[in-house]
């Protein structure tokens, strides 16, 4: 099933695991072996896997807070410039720049901008919007989004050689090692 029958390029190896414990232990071993272009694929977030992979904390919060403050400044300018300068109307004897009355708008635009930026950074950092994945061609995606756990070692890594990578995966106790391939035909009905 997973043998490259069509014109396909080998991109690395996929090791499949059946339980999260073996995955986390395997990830620690791959991390310590010094790989860079590798990843774990799981059906749901697995606790402790980030540490096992040696991942840095996500930068998403910085994007969110920056966008939030841009939203806040936008709201300050929007309400202040319009109410006090461009279109001043005296209402209820209040000062034109009655900032207290604009607080709800400051808050809402903070949240709105922060949320839009958070969504944008999910798409950017998770590299979404690339619909084609070699995992589909390798026939393992269905298992990954259901109940199995995968480690992918990519051949573009400097430390990669197929026998060594296979040996590393076997040493982690992996029972199911498959080639990572990419078919050349794009129109094979797989997204």
């Amino acid at each position, binding site marked *: 099933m997973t043998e490259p029958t069509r014109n396909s390029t080998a991109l690395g190896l996929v090791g499949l695991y059946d339980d999260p414990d073996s995955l986390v232990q395997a990830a620690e071993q791959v991390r310590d072996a010094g790989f860079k272009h590798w990843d774990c694929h799981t059906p749901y*977030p697995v606790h402790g896997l980030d540490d096992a992979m040696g991942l840095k904390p996500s930068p998403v919060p910085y994007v969110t807070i920056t966008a939030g403050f841009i939203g806040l400044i936008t709201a300050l300018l929007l309400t202040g410039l319009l109410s006090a300068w461009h279109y001043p109307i005296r209402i209820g004897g209040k000062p034109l720049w009655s900032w207290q009355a604009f607080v*709800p708008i400051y808050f809402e635009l903070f*949240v709105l901008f922060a949320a839009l930026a958070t969504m944008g950074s999910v798409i950017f*950092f*998770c590299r*979404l919007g690339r619909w084609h994945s070699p995992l589909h061609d390798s026939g393992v995606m269905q298992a990954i989004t259901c109940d199995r756990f995968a480690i992918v070692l990519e051949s573009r890594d400097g430390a990669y050689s197929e026998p060594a990578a296979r040996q590393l995966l076997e040493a982690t106790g992996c029972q199911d090692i498959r080639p990572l391939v990419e078919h050349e035909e794009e129109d094979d009905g797989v997204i």
Partner: protein
Amino acid sequence: MSETRSVLSPASLFTTAVSARSIDDDVYRPAESFPTGRWWAAITVTSFMALIFAVSVGYTVVVGIGTWGNNVPVGWGWAIVNFVFWIGIGHAGTLISAILFLLRQRWRTGIARFAEAMTIFAVICALQFPLIHTGRPWLAMFWLIPYPNGQGIYQNFRSPLEWDVFAVSTYGLVSLLFWFTGLIPDLASARDRAKHGFRKFAYGLLSLGWNGSNRGWTHYEKAYLLFAGLSTPLVLSVHSIVSFDFAVAVMPGWHTTIFPPYFVAGAIFSGFAMVATLIIIMRKMFRLQHLITDNHLELMNKIIIVTSMMVGYAYAMEFFIAWYSGVAYERFVFLNRAMGPYAWAYWIMVFCNVVAPQLLWFKKIRRSVLLMYPVVLLVNVGMWFERFVIVVTSLHRDYLPSSWDYFKPTWVDAGLLIGSFGLFLTLMLLFCRFLPTIATAELKAVAPGAQPSHGGSHD
């Protein structure tokens, strides 16, 4: 870690043994099989109700809002009642998805997706009412949103109605983003399970190419947490700002400082009642009782009784403050509420919202679908009447007895209310049919044995 069978232990979230595969099979089954006769019957009825909505809106637009029951003292009638009612319904979704997430309540995973969908559809229904109440909804963009325009005139940002524009539109949009973010991994599961070409294409397109990469999950989880953190103050702000529509007005019965927390508690109360009302039907229709268990219903019923006590307290406190303020108008409004021409509405409200939920003190009733169902239905009714009481009884006898009048709704009002239920239920049925009603990626993560047994003692 001692594995007690508390509500926080993974085992108590399910009534049968589950595996990641069985969760997927059960949740995606409705989307992968031809709809049942019951589903067709239900959507036939609800789309007919939605048609009534379309007819009522059309009639309102063509003839004008004079077709409604609004009269001179009661300038705000059912339209604002329905608006506040629907916005309130949405609040349970955000509470479950955001606040219970921050509080690490794992039982939320079974019901969060469904409740969030409800939030979005409820906000859609709510938005219809202020738009058609403008009379000319095609001009509402110009009236509501500050954008550079040829006339050079702008909104009054000191008006609670303008705050509402920002609050409700932000709330709707952020809820949608939060919901969609949660859906991405599940849409990928749906894509990979799909056998039919078009289904694979549609779910694949919506999943944005999610591949379960852990380098992705680390950002995704952080973003999800941030969404929850942003949504938590947002949900509290939205109904507070809706309550400012009333509280900022110098109107006896409205001008009270208790309104923001009172409205928020009421919104959560009505929202949970609506979640319970619909999820009981949904889990039966799609055979998901082992994933949305009686434990979930019991916990929801506990929240319902807590918030029922909060609104009950607010009703009592409003009366006390009216007396304590010494303002004759304020005292009159409250006596008139309980004993005037609309006393029937007031006592329906008190019975449904304060008296009936007391049954939920009994564990047997909290855990029995048959016994709790009438209670949650009554809460839905009662919370609609709460908004009716606040709007209509405060307005119908204002400062001048010469302008007093009795508000009577017309068939157009009734058509809009029934029709908005049709719109809401039709959207819910379509959601249940085409999208995973339970967040499978989240549920798998809290299933027994889903997390590594060593180390990791997060939540």
